[in-house]
């Protein structure tokens, strides 16, 4: 399998923006992550094939960046900040609460992340890269459940707006 005709057009559009095609590595990895829900080995191969690189080179870049998930993570990525401003405003408790709550969930993936640049909202988290804060364990679960129920429309797993071209 490689890119579909639509994917290929999209990839060509992205790559044409750069003087050197390898610069399109990150955008294309975002693209295959949106397609598959994670950066699968197939996704790596597709990007490598399109850019004329080896899969090892693409994976080498990919594995450096925390937003690229190299194992399936479900539908919602919940990123909880525990860095300094959140640390002293309840971030670690919020993270522990959510980690336990969703320990066995197939569609909610809770991760601890570094400063999200929204310290005025501490403790802050993101659901598929949408900011929310300040939150407690209870209000955070209520929020995530609204996403699960479809009451709040989530961004894609890579944080783009559904149906958006970007």
């Amino acid at each position, binding site marked *: 399998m490689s890119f579909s005709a639509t994917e290929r057009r999209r990839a060509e559009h992205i790559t044409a923006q750069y*003087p050197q095609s390898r610069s399109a590595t990150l955008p294309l990895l*975002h693209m295959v992550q949106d397609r598959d829900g994670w950066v699968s080995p197939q996704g790596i191969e597709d990007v490598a094939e399109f850019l004329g690189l080896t899969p090892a080179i693409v994976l080498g870049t990919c594995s450096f*960046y925390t937003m690229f998930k190299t194992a399936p993570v479900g539908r919602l990525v919940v990123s909880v900040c525990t860095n300094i401003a959140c640390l002293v405003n309840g971030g670690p408790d919020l993270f522990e609460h959510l980690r336990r709550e969703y320990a066995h969930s197939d569609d909610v993936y809770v991760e601890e*992340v570094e400063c999200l*640049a929204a*310290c005025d909202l501490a403790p802050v988290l993101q659901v598929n890269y949408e900011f929310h804060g300040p939150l407690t364990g209870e209000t955070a679960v209520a929020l995530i459940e609204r996403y699960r129920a479809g009451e709040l429309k989530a961004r894609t797993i890579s*944080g783009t707006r559904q149906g958006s071209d*970007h």
Partner: protein
Amino acid sequence: MAHETPVVTKFLRERPDDSWQFETARAFNAAYTRIEKAFSMGAEAIVEEVQKSGLRGKGGAGFGTGQKWSFLPKGVFPRYLCVNGDEGEPATFKDHMLVERDPHQLVEGVIITAYAIQANHAFIYLRGEFGLGTERLQQAIDDAYTHGFLGKNIGGSGFDLELVLHRGAGCYIAGDETGLLSSLEGERAMPRIKPPFPAAQGLYAAPTVVNNVETISTIPHIIAHGGDWYAGMGVNRSTGTRIFSVSGHVQRPGNYEIELGMTFRDLIEGLAGGMRDDRRMKFFIPGGASAPWLLPEHLDSPLDMDYAGAELRTMLGSGAITVFDETVDPLLVSWRLAKFYAHESCGKCTPCREGSSWIEKVLYRMVNGRGRPEDLDLLLSFGNNIVPGLNAPFAQTTICALGPSTMSHVVSLDRWFREEIIERLERDTARRRSLEIVSVSAGAGS
């Protein structure tokens, strides 16, 4: 009395509900009208005007912006402009706001800057986690293309500019100037040895200018009002305004744009409302996680970039001030920062790769009651391999500033809390020994 002096944050405050939209920015903020003036001034005059303004980079290092532009080798093309919007310095959240809420100001700044340095291709490297920021900035770029402010022959001037929004993917070190370039080239965001500096060989080994989002957002205002106007604000060599992100235990955390020269006290107690819950301040970090800490006794010092370095042995860095009250354990904050640097160290330079994780491990045992009296000195001995001499301005054995940053908080522990920490480590050690004796004698008796 403490007051704000909004320049780059003025419009986004005036129109909180639609400041990011093209029509609003055009109608109420004169968006893209400074381009014409810039084109009529000519490239060299713009660089001179920006040098005259005294504008210094607002991402952290505080290097002269006009000076940086003037380092481009003459007659070498193509050239590139890269805008650093990777904002990852813990407790900094100003670029996040500027990108989400006034993207047209940024795009206009890019057009003027690219014209001034004669680059026909510009990139904005935006932190990947900024979902809404990506959306709004891309929309702003699309609008600018639609209305002829980007693309071929802008405003009939003969100047062409392609502007690309490049999303990162979660990585602190992509915010380092050369780490950003590696990342933009599709590699791991590993910083590069300087020289060659990016001005000589940057993106694709071509002459490149890398400027922060807030720096570039200031450019349209300098063009509109002149370099003298900007230089007339601020104090000494810290001219103009800066956005300070204030967070932690204050009443009103948020971004405050002020004239430089105001005191920490006016900013923290005046604008941010002072401490929460009637508690006392224990310490604060004056310039992002990489800056050495300060105490309440320093509150009356001025927000002056050079004073911070020379007199306070710290820095205003990224303009992020985090305030901690008396209930906070400095060792806990230090350990969390150590964990951050251990996670974000790219692994290229041995002292940082190894040092950052050992600092984290030792701090972990210290914060959890398993420390030894000599642990603080052990940390300093690791640190001496990364930052020989352990004194600001930091020397370094690493390519980029992440190495020295791993030691800022440890140096601060030693500088301000040494006695308190050693006493605690001695207490913890004595308690552990007494438990050992109890368990040994219990074992002997059974």
